[in-house]
């Protein structure tokens, strides 16, 4: 590692001297096309006099928002950026303004640390060579021909020796939609990864209990209906940080309209600060006890909406159980402790969740007596091991009070792109016209919580009681930075060192690229033809090419097509249509909801000339806006106003007619007793869940920490600096957001830790160091760290200097196979060595 860092520094110096420009004479403008050259002051002055063009630039990350981003380009040089100014701004028709990350894009796309050429590890040989040197070997620049030949020969060799299941393509999840999976599937198949990350345990619970085919993220109210709420409970949701763009501003409109906000979170977040009328700190992974304690108060104080329970739910009490179920297994008797002898009183809950009895009772009373009241959860509380009880209990609380199906009420994880704007998309792209390539060995799919163990130990769980052998010998990394971003990165690094061949295609030397044998530079979205991006339900963004491809970067599709040729795979299967046609298909197929809400109509008018200019084949069509207008503005935003026909609240239809418009559950109702869910979890084979919501202490939750001598629970938060791991390398953002470790002031004082002291954080799974941020804004016993920092192992000390939560969090499979980032215990101590601020670290510049 030391060698690599040293080398990076030397290369940085060499690069400067090669350009032959002293810092003082350089204007900080970056020239694409022929490389990341700086232009001199004269050239910069010349450019400043020339007329440029604003181009709609992709802001394409999985950031939890979606905004309009534009780049000002003069003679191929990106001068600066801006956000939405396509129409005047107002709360009802707001501009789609971007965040600090979006505004830093040119520093990422044109960063000096972009990968420029294909590279291989110096000590690599067919079969791996010195595999233990992965992560610290030197890099050797190679030609694309050599890189593609290596890819093809290793793929052929590994298939011959070990078979298709030994190819592991973990980045894109299951489904075969993405480029390397297309190639491997066409070549006989590959082992894929499955398991949701962001949504915690919501997807299976929400869909099974309600019968809706979704994870609940787009359920709740649209932004206008939110203004009807009298009470909005943000439960483990911090949109100011995890859904940037409009959501917090939309909440502000609800607040101005009179909604009270209660924020439940171990951290006093910026959302709690700007929106919250009350903050209720709760211990991570114990929220279910708070919900049950509230349920107990509501039952014993006769605050139930019994009509709603009778008409719209099943399983609440012994009189409303599905046929065949044990009547004793009803929710009410569980809460009252009728049969297990443990009433789930506020006192019982308080002991576990850390919220005072008084606050639990008042909170329960307020929620039960306020209509409409909305519970809006982030994924975070459900992002825990054995997490299925939490969403189920949360939904049950809403059923008990009838706070669902009426404007301004509801219960859902209304988050990410849909935050504060639930409901079906009002404008949407057409399909790209590329058929999926099915995986002939689709059963070979490993859960995120088992994947690195499976590589190391050769076995994974296919279903309950069924372990299957697997011999992974190639890991193909691309797109989603799996090694860094899934829990268990310590095991992941070992796994990368074990296989015979590891490859990465990326923009930068990310964690997975660093531990690979072969690294292929890819183009960013700014260097490609263009595409459509969806965001909140009212917008569709059309971004176009900003700059030419940098250095020798190529698209992912070009790479797999070239490998396909060498493998003798039909390139028409892998790469069936042109980029131009793909883009055209999406735009021509784009549809927009009619103003009366009666259905969709075409969005874009295409003339024969437009189609020809785009280089595609198609028929002229008439839509709401011209192709030229769409391209020029780069966005279509659906006109909205209060009281329009596009407002949305989940389950209004069902509430109006629970008999005639049954839900798609076996009972036709919301299922508080949900046998289908219980059986589904059981079949997956990692853990079990009772048909009703109960408290089942999560693996590595609060209780396990106490038992095993880990005094702190760590929460893994989304971090302002980056979109998951993307943009973590941008110096502006590193300067603004230092990846600090949050710790309660009282806890810190006991350990003699002050702000900016370097602390060592150890879990059962890995160790990291970080500067402390000592604060009153976090609950005692809880610590917090932002997810997504690029692992930077100090191998001698055995610590990750970047503070990657992938290193800290455990590689554990439970429930529906979701990731349990917020159930993890740590120890904290003062570290004895200094650590430079991240923005001063050398960039990962290889060539």
């Amino acid at each position, binding site marked *: 590692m030391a060698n690599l860092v040293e080398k990076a520094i030397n290369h940085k110096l060499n690069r400067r001297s090669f350009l032959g420009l002293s810092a003082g004479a350089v204007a900080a403008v970056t020239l694409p096309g022929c490389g990341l050259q700086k232009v001199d002051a004269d050239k910069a002055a010349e450019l400043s006099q020339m007329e440029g063009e604003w181009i709609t630039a992709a802001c394409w990350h999985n950031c939890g928002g979606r905004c309009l981003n534009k780049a000002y380009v003069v003679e191929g040089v990106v001068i600066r950026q801006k956000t939405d100014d396509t129409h005047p*701004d107002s709360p009802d028709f707001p501009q789609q*303004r971007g965040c600090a990350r979006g505004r*830093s894009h*040119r520093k990422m796309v044109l960063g000096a640390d972009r990968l420029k050429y294909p590279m291989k590890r110096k000590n690599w040989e067919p079969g791996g060579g010195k595999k233990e040197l992965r992560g610290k070997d030197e890099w050797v620049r190679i030609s694309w021909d050599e890189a593609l030949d290596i890819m093809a020969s290793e793929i052929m060799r590994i298939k011959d020796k070990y078979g298709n299941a030994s190819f592991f393509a973990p980045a894109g999840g299951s489904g075969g939609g993405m480029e390397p999976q297309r190639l491997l599937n066409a070549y006989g198949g590959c082992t894929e990864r499955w398991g949701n990350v962001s949504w915690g345990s919501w997807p299976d619970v929400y869909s099974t209990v309600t019968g809706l085919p979704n994870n609940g993220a787009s359920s709740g109210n649209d932004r206008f209906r939110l203004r009807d709420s009298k009470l909005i409970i943000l439960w483990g949701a911090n949109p*100011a940080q995890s859904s*940037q763009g*409009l959501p917090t501003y939309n909440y502000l409109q609800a607040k101005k309209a009179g909604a009270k906000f209660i924020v439940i979170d171990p951290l006093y977040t910026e959302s709690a600060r700007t929106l919250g009328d009350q903050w209720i700190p709760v211990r991570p992974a114990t929220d279910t006890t708070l919900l049950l304690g509230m349920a107990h108060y509501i039952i014993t104080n006769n605050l139930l909406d019994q009509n709603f329970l009778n008409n719209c739910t099943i399983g609440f009490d012994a009189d409303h159980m599905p046929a065949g179920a044990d009547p004793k297994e009803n929710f009410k008797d569980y809460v009252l402790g009728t049969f297990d002898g443990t009433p789930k009183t506020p006192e019982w809950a308080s002991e576990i969740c850390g919220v005072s009895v008084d606050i639990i009772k008042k909170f329960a009373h307020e929620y039960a007596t306020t209509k409409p009241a909305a519970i809006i959860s982030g994924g975070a509380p459900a992002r825990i091991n054995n997490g299925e009880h939490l969403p189920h209990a949360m939904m049950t609380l809403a059923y008990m009070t009838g706070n669902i199906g009426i404007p301004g009420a509801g219960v859902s994880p209304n988050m990410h792109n849909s935050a504060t704007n639930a409901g079906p998309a009002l404008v949407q792209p057409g399909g790209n016209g590329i058929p999926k390539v099915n995986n002939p060995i689709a059963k070979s799919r490993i859960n995120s919580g088992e994947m690195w163990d499976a590589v190391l130990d050769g076995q994974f769980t296919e279903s309950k009681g069924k372990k299957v052998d697997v011999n992974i010998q190639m890991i193909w990394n691309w797109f989603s930075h799996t090694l860094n971003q899934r829990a268990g990165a310590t095991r992941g690094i070992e796994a990368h060192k074990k296989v015979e061949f590891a490859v990465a295609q990326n923009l930068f030397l990310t964690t997975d690229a660093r531990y690979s044998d072969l690294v292929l530079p890819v183009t960013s979205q700014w260097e490609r033809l263009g595409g459509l991006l969806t965001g909140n339900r009212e917008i569709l963004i059309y971004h176009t090419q900003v700059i030419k491809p940098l250095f020798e970067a190529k698209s992912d599709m070009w790479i797999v097509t070239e490998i396909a040729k060498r493998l003798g795979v039909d390139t028409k299967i892998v790469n069936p249509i042109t980029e131009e046609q793909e883009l055209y298909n999406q735009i021509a197929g784009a549809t927009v909801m009619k103003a009366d809400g009666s259905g969709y109509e075409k969005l874009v008018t295409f003339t024969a000339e437009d189609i020809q200019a785009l280089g595609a084949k198609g028929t002229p069509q008439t839509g709401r806006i011209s192709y030229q207008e769409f391209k020029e503005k780069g966005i279509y935003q659906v006109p909205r106003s209060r009281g329009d026909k596009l407002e949305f609240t989940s389950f209004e239809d069902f509430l109006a007619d629970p008999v005639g418009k049954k839900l798609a559950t076996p009972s036709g109702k919301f299922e508080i007793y949900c046998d289908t869910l219980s059986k589904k979890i059981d079949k997956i084979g990692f853990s079990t869940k009772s048909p009703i919501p109960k408290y089942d202490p999560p693996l590595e939750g609060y209780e396990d920490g106490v038992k095993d001598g880990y005094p702190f629970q760590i929460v893994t938060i989304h971090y302002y600096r980056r979109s998951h791991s993307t943009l973590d390398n941008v110096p*502006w*953002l590193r300067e603004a957001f230092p990846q600090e470790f949050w710790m309660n*002031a009282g806890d810190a004082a006991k350990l003699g830790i002050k702000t900016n002291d370097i602390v060592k954080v150890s879990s059962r799974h890995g160790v990291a160091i970080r500067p402390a941020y000592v604060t009153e804004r976090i609950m005692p016993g809880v610590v917090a760290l932002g997810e997504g920092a690029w692992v930077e192992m100090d191998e001698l000390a055995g610590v990750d200097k970047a503070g990657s939560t992938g290193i800290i969090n455990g590689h554990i499979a439970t429930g529906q196979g979701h990731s349990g980032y917020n159930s993890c215990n740590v120890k904290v101590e003062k570290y004895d060595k200094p650590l430079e601020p991240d923005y001063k670290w050398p960039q990962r510049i290889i060539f």
Partner: protein
Amino acid sequence: MAQLGFYYDMTICTSCKVCQIACSDKNDLEVGTLFRKVYNFEGGEFPNPWAYNLSIACNHCAEPKCTKNCPTGALYKREKDGIVMFDEGKCIGCKMCTWSCPYGQPKYIESKGKSGKCNFCVDLIDAGEEPACVAACQMRALEFGDIEELRKKYGSTADIKGLPDSGITKPHLTIHPNKEAMK
């Protein structure tokens, strides 16, 4: 045209720092130099903490010390709207301005050997646009305009904890403060 100033609604600022980054982008600043910066303050005691943020750039003061102490006239107030302008060609890099401003605003840029500062995005506002920071704000917590109009609308608080006495330079800034930030 009247004197221009900034309004900042501290109560709704989420410290997303897009103003800071949009400023660095517009002015093409390198790491280490910020013409607009967001500061964070906190206090209280768990479970009753408080926190507030402060986004601040040049306040284009009525009585700026930077213009007064600049030996070459590189810093001056633009007549028509009172923007504190900076003429890089006249700057000799003596750093007097950086020592003079109680808000720490003109910055010395090592790589240039000269100062630099917020010029209210004068090219943008002359073209009828908003300054980059204002146009960027996700919460619409930043506004700009005739300072007298802003003061009429939002009051005239420029004295909060963490900022110097407004009597020193008479900044054209008005803030909607959190109660903990009030002096």
